[in-house]
């Protein structure tokens, strides 16, 4: 990783802005666990595990910036997204254009998260992509899809008023979180088992310390 590639990565994140847009993916992290989002955004923590590495590899596969035609549908991979209005930036794994209307497709690797939560996080993330696409193209984007690589299945998601409201509420909560000094308390539940930040988060430590105190 030397030379241009490494420099390109940085150039894509043009430094020095005063108002900082939030990464779209942070909405999914927040939905999954606010503490996880805070560890990544406030503490600068990131640990890879089997699942994140698999995810990164899967994204690399779709992360080829080129447009191509597939069965009459134009496909754009790794498309840069942004919204000035919402202060969001990111990249869509895949955006299909059906008669000019963008249709975002988010690729998900596996079943590492509790199912319902994973689904909600992916939907919020996808909806944020749709909001960006609407601003960029000046078109309404009614539907998109989540593609599960494990199941080789695509599930269509409609951007209903309810989902849009939930996405905006998540964004607001995320901004509030970034404005605060302290980390939210750990979840210490089923979410933690496969979380790559388990070792950094130490979700069961408060309980253990309390046990220590009680024992005295």
């Amino acid at each position, binding site marked *: 990783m030397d030379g241009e590639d490494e*420099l390109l990565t940085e150039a*894509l994140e*043009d430094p020095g802005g005063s108002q900082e847009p939030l990464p779209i993916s942070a909405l999914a992290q927040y939905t999954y666990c606010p503490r996880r989002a805070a560890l990544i*955004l406030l503490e600068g923590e990131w640990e890879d595990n089997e699942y994140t590495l698999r995810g990164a590899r899967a994204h690399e596969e779709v992360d080829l*910036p080129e447009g191509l035609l597939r069965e009459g549908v134009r496909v754009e991979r790794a*498309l840069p997204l*942004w919204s000035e209005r919402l202060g969001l930036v990111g990249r869509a794994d895949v955006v299909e254009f059906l008669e000019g209307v963008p249709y975002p497709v988010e690729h998900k690797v596996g079943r590492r998260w509790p199912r319902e939560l994973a689904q909600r996080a992916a939907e919020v993330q996808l909806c944020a992509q749709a909001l960006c696409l609407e601003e960029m193209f000046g078109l309404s984007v009614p539907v998109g899809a989540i593609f599960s690589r494990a199941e080789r299945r695509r599930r269509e998601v409609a951007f209903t008023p309810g989902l849009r409201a939930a996405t905006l509420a998540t964004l607001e909560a995320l901004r509030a979180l970034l404005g605060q000094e302290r980390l939210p308390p750990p979840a210490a539940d089923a979410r933690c088992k496969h979380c790559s930040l388990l070792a950094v988060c130490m979700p069961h430590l408060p309980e253990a310390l309390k046990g220590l105190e009680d024992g005295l």
Partner: protein
Amino acid sequence: MVSELLNTLYVQTQGVYLRLEGDTLRIQHEEITLRNVPLHHLGGLVVFGNVLISPFLLQRCAQDGIEVAWFTESGRFFGRLAPPVSGNVLLRQAQYRALDTPSTRLYLAGRFVEGKLRNSRLVLQRAVRERGETEALVRALAEHEAALRALPQARSLDEVRGVEGNAASAYFAAFGDLLLTEDFSFNGRNKRPPRDPVNALLGFVYALLLTQCTAALEGVGLDPQGGFLHALRPGRNALALDLMEEFRAWWADRLALTLLNRKQLTRKHFEERPGGAVFLNEEGRKVVITAFQNRRQETVQHPLFKEPVPVGLLPHIQARLLARYLRGDLPQYPPFLAR
């Protein structure tokens, strides 16, 4: 102090081998000796990319307190030899203390902005001299004069940032007038992602410059995240962004303008994505990196030391001056002022 800095040996030739030969550093390439450098002249050793250093030479450097720093070929810092006795902890303590001292923080933020304002003004003045006045250029120059008068009155970081922001918007409102080609136009700064070729180019050159500033700070042992003007955020090299302000217009913007005005970069070097994001393509990036590296080799007369200095060393000199100021060795921090 500059002599000490200029006693640093910068090795950028790929595939060379540095070894110890008595009290001399010998630079070899495939058994052929290219150069011998007496160690007692040497304050530091900086190597870029594929440069091999023998263990005996490394040990000797550690023993003699010769700083060794490794960079990638393109100039990104990735490591430094830490000799047993090092002033780094004291320097970083001084840096953090300065960050916690509002008056010092305000002073340094002001100096970085002053450097930016003066060097931006120079670029604008040169444009007026070379191609005459335009409304936007005149306005931008007036804004810079006003900003330079307002800066010493600023009583808070927010005021300093406000002064800088006003001048910057006038500067970018005039920036399109510095383009002498019909092929490109500029209607204001945007980023993340850039939405026209000029912004794509500026973003890329700023990123190259940022790696140089980060490397320079790490090279003297400062924490590149501990910035005075820019807000602190994990992972963000706020001090490198501070230092970069002095060089943005004079180095990065002028390089970008030269590439566009001389038509070394054309439309074919850019790629537009649906929705409007624009990036340099691989060929375009090559053109920019080559021009950037060439600029690093060019020498300018240093305004303080009255010696010719390679442009690429300027951030290193500023980092050293900042370290000296923070350690109380210098009464003030002089920003780099081009001429």
